[in-house]
């Protein structure tokens, strides 16, 4: 029977299927971090259970850690306890850990791909919603809660109800200066934050095929922001080239067998999706959010919308609340919005290509006097690579702060936060109320827009810099 990519990966992992029960799926890779794991390890201890497959499990420290003074003890005692708890748990249960200060430490969704552990056709889970990132490799990857983390630690499986399938076909190619981030923000504005609910999505079409692995990760990362369970892209030569030679890529004969399998995973020509969405990449322009959910976005060239523009009563009420929280007036051009802080980083846009893009825009410019800019690499390897390429010098001579690796200002649970009322342009994934710090206001943007905004002091694109 013809199958989609997601259905092939699913079928390959069914351990057990029972009437009236969800399928029991085998999990190939379990990524662990400090925030969603302590209660799961406690649960194991209480029940006298062990980690079934430490050799399919890897941990790192990313969410609550500082990005400066990383060689010193963590100042916040509650954060320090959580990190120490992860270290003790990993030691007790035999789980590999890359702690703060280690060259392979970083945001869990940057570390997995970079080590070559994220591979096509695998199942990947983590107690973090942005696990969808790994779908860029053609892996079935999704976020789970702490009870499920415990379940995977104990059994290496998860009971899962079979989701519906959706194709997002992106025809044509992205114009110059328009990035994967703009594309996914435009998609979410079109389909809404609940548009993918109950679906595993496959991104396909000419525009997707043309993207690098890192850009594909940006797209799949944001799958959860429109409610999808997971987002996948079929493995191809770009995927194979990315994985070749990575530390945990298969070796010798295994490599050939693996590649043959990976390239067989693409959706069959006559396979059916439950739903299809088509997007024209050629019409996408730099895209930014104005509101407090990732679906509240407009082209950078547009204005802050009026709540009256929304037909649906819930959308109208949400827009009114969002505009009040964001302190924005309908009709204001997006480019006229002044920005206090620019944050470059996160599992959405904290990889080396993102940093190269930002450096290329910043080179020869200064960050505006009214604005502070943080550049936070997604992993320590990314930091080392950026430094080897001299990107750090571009950032610091432009007046930006160059930091250590971690989730940083994406989520306001470490020292990097916005102050109440502060406005940020952020390459991260969520503009929720208070996401980057209590009372902080977030505009989601691409790396290109982030860099130009830092120089201009207001939202803008690299094309606006010629006048500066």
């Amino acid at each position, binding site marked *: 029977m013809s199958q989609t990519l997601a259905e092939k990966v699913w079928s390959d992992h069914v*351990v*057990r299927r029972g009437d*009236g029960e969800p399928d*029991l799926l*085998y999990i*190939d890779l379990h990524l662990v971090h400090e925030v*969603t794991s302590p*209660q799961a390890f*406690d649960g194991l201890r209480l*029940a006298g259970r062990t980690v079934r497959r*430490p*050799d*399919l499990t890897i941990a790192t420290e990313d*969410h609550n850690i500082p990005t400066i003074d990383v060689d010193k003890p963590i100042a*916040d005692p509650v954060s320090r*306890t*959580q990190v120490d708890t992860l270290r003790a748990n990993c030691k007790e249960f035999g789980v*590999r850990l890359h702690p703060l200060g280690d060259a392979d430490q970083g945001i869990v969704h940057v570390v997995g791909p*970079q080590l*070559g552990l*994220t591979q096509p056709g695998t199942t990947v889970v983590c*107690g973090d*919603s942005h696990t969808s990132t790994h779908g860029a490799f053609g892996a079935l990857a*999704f*976020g789970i*809660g*702490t*009870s499920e983390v*415990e*379940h995977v630690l104990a*059994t*290496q499986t998860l*009971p899962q*109800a079979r989701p519906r399938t959706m194709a997002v076909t992106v025809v044509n190619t992205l114009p110059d200066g328009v990035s994967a981030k703009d594309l996914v923000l435009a998609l979410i504005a079109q389909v809404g*934050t609940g548009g993918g*609910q109950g679906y595993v999505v496959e991104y396909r079409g000419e525009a997707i095929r043309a993207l690098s692995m890192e850009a594909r990760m940006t797209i799949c990362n944001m799958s*959860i922001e429109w*409610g999808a*369970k997971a987002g996948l892209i079929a493995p191809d030569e770009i995927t194979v080239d*990315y994985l070749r030679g990575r530390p*945990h890529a*298969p070796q010798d004969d*295994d490599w050939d*067998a*693996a590649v043959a399998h990976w390239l067989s995973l693409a959706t069959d020509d006559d396979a059916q999706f439950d739903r299809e969405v088509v997007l024209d990449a050629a019409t996408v322009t730099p895209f930014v959010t104005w509101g407090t*959910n990732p679906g509240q976005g407009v082209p950078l060239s547009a204005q802050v919308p009026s709540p009256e523009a929304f037909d649906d009563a*819930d959308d109208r*009420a*949400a827009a009114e609340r969002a505009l009040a929280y964001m302190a924005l007036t309908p009709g204001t051009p997006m480019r006229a919005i002044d920005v206090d802080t620019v944050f470059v980083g996160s599992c959405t846009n904290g*990889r080396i290509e993102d940093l190269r893009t930002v450096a290329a825009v910043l080179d020869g410019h200064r960050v505006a006097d009214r604005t502070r800019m943080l550049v936070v690499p997604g*992993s320590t*390897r*990314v930091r*080392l690579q950026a430094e080897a390429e001299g990107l750090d010098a571009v950032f610091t001579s432009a007046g930006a702060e160059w930091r250590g690796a971690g989730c940083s200002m994406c989520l306001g*649970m470490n020292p990097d936060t916005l102050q109440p009322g502060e406005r940020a342009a952020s390459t991260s994934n*969520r503009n*929720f*109320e*208070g996401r980057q710090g209590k*009372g902080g206001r977030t505009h989601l943007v691409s790396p290109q827009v982030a860099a130009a905004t830092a120089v201009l002091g207001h939202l803008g694109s690299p094309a606006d810099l010629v006048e500066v």
Partner: protein
Amino acid sequence: MQPFTTHTGTAVALRRSNVDTDQIIPAAYLKRVTRTGFEDGLFAAWRADPDFVLNRPESAGASILVAGPDFGTGSSREHAVWALQDYGFAAVVSPRFGDIFRNNAGKAGLLAAEVDAKVVAALWDLLERQRRAVVTLDLHDRTISADGDEGRIEDSFDIDDYTRWRLLQGLDDVAATLAHSDDISSYEEARPSWKPQTLPARVSDPAVDPVAP
């Protein structure tokens, strides 16, 4: 986990859509390593406003939250479910839930009842007229009901069969799966050798560009 069969209690109308998990419990509260005591983080930013619905005296002791669509979107934090439970909620009613939140609720024993939008609208209107109105959720029959001054509201709610069964039984998922250990072992024996393994650990050669293809 305690079995969940039927629940009757007073309810709170949260007239908002897209209540993401950062609103339910901000990240600053996630640094704790404990499993209980998250009630102080529930809607922490919104509760700073004295007019917020949970701060009204008539909301005291409420155990059912009636919210707009896309409740629990965003982060995977199960702390959002724990905070609701620790505060005293036994059930959340919404036309649509974030996927991970709904899963987490099912694991932790919080009922996430998906209802038609018109049921939420009717309950909101009722709860704003009669602030101590009592709502009943019957998990066995999958029905929600409330007796109001303008008549009875009664409708069905959706929850998947397996989660319903587990909640009715109060069953621990891990034990249920471990009963199938033999199936898991057979599956593992057939896994291809080229599947990734984290151990023994291999790391990048620093002389080779480790991150760029």
